[in-house]
Every structure is written in C-alpha cells, then in structure tokens.
C-alpha cells in the first residue's frame, strides 16, 4: 500500500510540474505569436560587410 502512495505522489508531482510549465508558457506569450520564433531560429548570423 505504501508503495502506491509513493507512486501516487510521484505521478501527481510530475503532472503538476507540467501544469506549471504550461501556465508559464501561456504567461510568457508563447502561444500568441507562432510565426516569429519559428522563423527567427532559422536565420544565419551573417558577417556585417556582406554585399551583393
């Protein structure tokens, strides 16, 4: 029985961590702009003096 209690505690804790992560993601606005972050990461940093 005590093993079950331990497991219950562990599983609920993991769930709560994910709930907290979700709330943080909403609060920081990650669901509001799904375009810029996805594209920003693809930009290569280029040397400043590149001309065509």
């Amino acid at each position: 029985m005590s093993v079950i209690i331990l497991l219950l505690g562990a599983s609920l804790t993991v769930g709560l961590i994910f709930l907290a992560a979700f709330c943080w993601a909403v609060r920081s606005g990650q669901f509001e702009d799904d375009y810029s972050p996805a594209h920003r990461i693809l930009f290569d940093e280029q040397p400043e003096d590149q001309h065509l």
Partner: protein
Amino acid sequence: MTTVETCCYHCGEACENNERWLDDKPFCCEGCKLVFELLNNNGLCAYYQLNGQPGAPQRTPVRADKFAFLEDEKIQQQLIQFRNNTHTHVTFYIPQIHCSSCLWLLEHLHRLDAGVQRVTVNFARKEAQVIFQEPQTSLRKVAELLTSIGYEPYISLQDLQHKKPGINRQLIYQLGVAGFCFGNIMLLSFPEYFSGNGDIDTHLFRYLNLALSLPVFLYSAQAFYRSAWGGLKHGFMNIDVPIVLAIFVTFARSLADIATGSGAGYFDALTGIVFFMLAGRALQDKTYQGLSFDRDYTSYFPIAVTVVKGGKQLPIALPDIREGDILLIHNNELVPADGMLIQGNALIDYSFVTGEADPVPCQAGDIIYAGGRQLDGNIQLHTIKPVAQSYLTSLWNRQELQQQTHRETSFIHLLGRYFTWGVLGIAVLTAAWWAWHDPARIWPSVTAILIIACPCALLLASSFTGGHILRILSRHRLYLRNANAIERLAATDHIVFDKTGTLTDKHNTTVIFNGPPLTHAESMLAAALAAQSTHPLSQAVRSFCGNSGLPVQQFRQVTGMGIAGVVNGEHIRLGNAAFTGAGENTAGGSVVHFSVNGQVRGYFSMQNGYRKGIPGLLMQLRKKYALTVLSGDNAREEKQLRKLMGNDAALCFSQQPQDKLDHILALQKQGYKVLMIGDGLNDAGALKQSNTGISLTEDSNNFTPASDGILEARQLPLLPFYIQLCKACKRIILTSFVFSLVYNFTGLFFAVQGRLSPLTAAVLMPASSISIILITWGLSMLAGKRLHRKALQLGADEDQPFT
C-alpha cells in the same frame, strides 16, 4: 519602350518604363531603389535572399518632416512604454510586416542605427518592439529609419487615447487546469473500476479524485457559471443554464456518494465534459490579432497635425487643436478637423465619409469637413470646430451607433431549452414511478438522469462546428467577429450593397475618350501636358494616353478650371467645359475636355470600374436574394447598375448615412434578414443596424468601420459560397446532435433504473464527446472543400492570409 515586363527587385511590381537599374537589378521607382541602396550599403541584402521581392512599393515618398511630432514631449509620453537613463521601449504597429524577410530586417535594425539596441517583432500582431538608447538616437529618428527602409509605423489618434486591451488568457488557464485534473482523475479511477472485490482500499483514491475535481468545479467551470448567470439576469435561459445545473447535480451526487461510502462519484465524467466544452469554447473564441472589429474614427485620424503659428510650422497633437488654429494639410493627408480653406488648391476626396466617388474642388472660403483627403498639393485651413465636435466625429457618436441592438438568439439555446424540458419531464416521470415502487431509488435515478442528459453534446457540437467554420472562412479571407455571426449570415435573405468602394474599385478607374478617336500624335500632346500636373484627373488622362517625352512651354494651371500649355507648337488645353470652350457639360461625372488650338477634340470621362467578378456575382445572387444598392453617389451609373442588378433590385442614390440606416430599418420591419456590405464610414450606421454587417477592405491596414466581419475585397465574388457554408454549419450541428442522442438514450436506459455506474458514465461521456468532435471536424472539412473548389474555380488565389 521594351515590351518585356521586368519586375522590381524590391517590391515585385512591374517596372513601367524600365529605366532604373542598379547593380543589374531593375527598380520600379526611386523609393524602392533608395531602400535597396541603403540596405546594400549596410550589408543587409540577406533581406532579398530570404524571400524574393519582399518589399512594399515605395512610389509615394513620405514627407521629410512627417514624424516631427514625435519630438513633442507630450506625444512621446503617450507612446513610450518604458524609459530610463539607458534605454527606451516603444512598440510600433507596422502593417507592412508580412514575411520572414520583414522579420529579419527589422530585427537587424541595429546595423543601421547603433542607437537601436534590440527589436522584437510580434508577427501575429504586426508589431515591432524597439529598445533604443537616448540620446544616440531618438523616437523620431527610429520612426524615420523604419520609414526609410519601407516599414512606416502606423501611428493614429487611437494610440493616444487608449491603450490596446490585453489578451484574455483566462480561458486557456482554465482549459489547462481542467485537462490536468481530468487526466489524473481518469488515471486514479482505474483502481476503483478494475480492482475487483476490494483487494485495494479505494478510499484514498476517492478523496484524491474529490480534491482534484475541486479546481475544475471552482475555477475552470467559471466560464459557464458566468454565462449562465448573465443570461438569467436578463431573463433568458441560455444553453449554459442546464449545463451548470448538470455540473452542480453531478458534483453534489458524487460528494454524497463518497460521503456515504456508497460509490466513487462521477468526477471523471464531470471534469471530462468541462474539459471538452472548454476546448470547444477556446477553439470558437480564436481571435484575429491582426484585425480589429471595433475600430472607430480615432484609428483613422493621424495623431498630430502641422499648425502654422507665427510663420513657424509646429506639430501639435490632435486633441490640442483649438478653434482658430491654422492647419497645414499636406498632399494626400487627411483633414482632421472642420475648417475654412484659406490657401492652396483644395481637391477633397470625401469618398470614405460620404460615398461620393468624385473629389470635390473647393475655393478659398469654403468649409472643408474632417475626414476628407486632400489630393492636390498643400493647403491651409482655419479651424472652425475642434476635432471632438467635427462633422465626422458627430457622425460616429450618433445615438444609433452607440446603443446595443438586440439580436435574435441562436437556435442552440432554443433547442437546448426543449431538450432540458424533455429531460426534466423524464426525471419527473421516473421519480413518480420509483415513488410508487421503491422510494429509495428516487435519488440515484433522478440525479443520474440529470447527469447523463445535460445538453453538453449540443454545446460541444455548436462550439466545435463554429470554430471550424470560422477557421475555414478565415482561410478564404472572410474574418467573422464570432460564431454568432455565422448563424446570422446563414439566415440572410436580403443583401444590401454600397456602391463606391464596394461594388466599384477606387483604384481601378477606367478612362474613355468620347469624340473622334485620337491619333497617336494627339495622345502624345495630351499626355505631355497632363504629365505636368499632379491632379488625379490629369494623372488618369496621362496613364490613358501613354508616356510622352515632349517638352511643354508656357504651362499654366488654373485652379478649379484646368491646365494649358504649348506642346510642339500647338496650344493644348485640358480642363472643364468653360476652360476649353466645350459648351455646357452634359456628360456628368468626372470629365476632362481636351482642346487643340482652341478646337475642342472631345472629352475624357472617368468611371470607377466594377470589381472583378461583380457582374457574375450579382447575376447569381439575383436568383436567390432580394438586392438593394444604397449609394452615397449620384445617379449617373443607374442604367449600368440596373442592367447588373436586374429589375427587382432597389437602387437608391445620393444616400446620406442616416438614409442608409433608415433604409435598413425599413427592410427589417418588412421582416427581411439584411446583410449589408459596405466599406466606408458612411456605411457605419447601416453596417451596425443590419443583421449582419460585413466591411470590405483592400488590405489589412485599411480602416474598416465596426462590423460583424471583414472581407478582403477581391474575395467578394465568393459571397454566395460563404453563405452556403454558414448554412451548412447548422446542419452539421444538428447531425452531430442527433448522433449524440444515441449515447444519451443509452445512458438514460441505465439512469431511469437507477443503475448508472460511474464506469458507464465515464465511458459514455468521453465517447460521445470525442465522436462529436470527430463528426463536426469531418463534416466541416467536407463543407469547406466545396468552398475551396469554388474559390479555385473563380481564380481567387490562395497565398498567405494576413492575420
């Protein structure tokens, strides 16, 4: 001239005369070339490599001191969000943002100005947050820098008066909490359902479930409590009322079961249904961040205007304009306050305010009303009414636009009510039966009936279908304010159109020459003369006659009359009848007479062309709907319109905004469900009064009056198919509802006997929810495919939508 079409390297528009080249790259105008030079000199040409031709055309140069008002301390304070010694934060709305190149360039702004520390673009809102350092750079310099690379920030009076409302994230949190609790309760219920004969002590799990259901009951379900209470307060029983009743009964029954130790309660069914309903609501409430359905005149007005005081030009914030101030209105600027013309050639385009298609020429001393756009050089005005009392503002603040019109309620609520009465009837009958046979089973059977038969299936079906339909419509560029608008649009039986800017395209002027056909030499003469003037009519004549490099001597311009000059030794005149000696003007509308050496050759007449696909659209609509045209313009196009609209349509001309509104009211009194399609401020009242008001826009940046929906203008020919899709919405909801009744009856079968076990409920509830979600999704996609096929047939293109 070459006939090969070259496209501008910056914006992709056709290069008309093919003469501007730099680094082997063609440019359509000086503006585009300048932007390229600036970027090239600063090593920012990756802009052009990420996407081909990413820019916006820069044909109309922005006046050098346009952003002078940003030096004003008071205006700065309103715009700047945060400021300390080291940095300043400001957010600009930049409507041109449309691709990853824009994103890249704006976020590399620091390479152009070392004072800029960081730029973060929010693509969905089309906003750029700029962090910069004073005094290395200033607010004005940043705005001017953005303008110089083709991203002019849009700063309107609205920015001054109220801050944009924050996004409401509560629903998302509620959904997250409900999902967490639902998942865990399901998991923790397994021992209860499958433990067999008491090998495990399930009491701990029961109390854990109770604890986990509390956040759902007390927090997540608030969305429904609020809506139900709001409805009841107004004496209206909406669909949320029976749902809240079911939530309460389920919770009470479960609590009682656990307290007496007689069962595990129905917490998994309860939290599951709340979770699914919230998911539907979140889907349906998706907002278009790039669009605003509630714009008022303040977002149409500039934030500041140039005032002439003691020979100096000062930028003054609009609310600070007083009676008697002298305003300097630059070419192509909006007149922000009613005033008397004291200097310059005024040619005012009122089409947005009144619907008149032709610009109005004004003489010194004439009153010019706010909302008009000056088209012919700079003018000076003597303010006679401050902004808050001007004609345009009073138009907006009129009573009928402020009051909330009562709108008929959705069939969902009605159906939900019948359903509830039916369920209550069954509950009463069951109670009576058990009172006779076995009174102990009244409580379990009645509560079980209320649990199993809540109209949540109906609510789920309607919110998921609504969400899907809204999304499909937005993919085809019709952006509806909310799901209620779908049902109202579906009920339409009378369509009212505005003419100017709705049926016709303001940017598509057709020029016809009336008279003996012009020879090429004559065309060249007219073109050379017309090229000397910036007047829109001259411009139209020039584009009709072609390019001419002939020199013009003795050029003179007579305000309100026309232009004259000597080309190739011939005396040429373009202008009104009196100026050219053509005699009385009988043509009506915008005409330019043309004379060579005093000999009248004929006249050019200009007409706004109808949008592409309009004749076909009207032909189709005519068969199914009653049609009306309410135009603020005069009746000169009546014949042509009559031919398009058919004999049954009502055509009304010279309609003031008030007339339009009254006309809609009259139609509604006759029992019509009116759909109004308009674009200007003069339609604002009618749009609001009609059952559904849709405003057309050329692009997302355009000002649109408050309405139920925003439609991109070139998609107008798809109108009948939009309505068809909206009609399908109701059918889909009903189909999935009927389907869900199967689950309800299965549940009722157990419930009336008082034998509904938590396990049965836990299987039935999610099963019915998920099948409704799948059915609505599948049927919506099917209905959407039909619209998509039509869209392709009509040749409407399918690129990136603008939200």
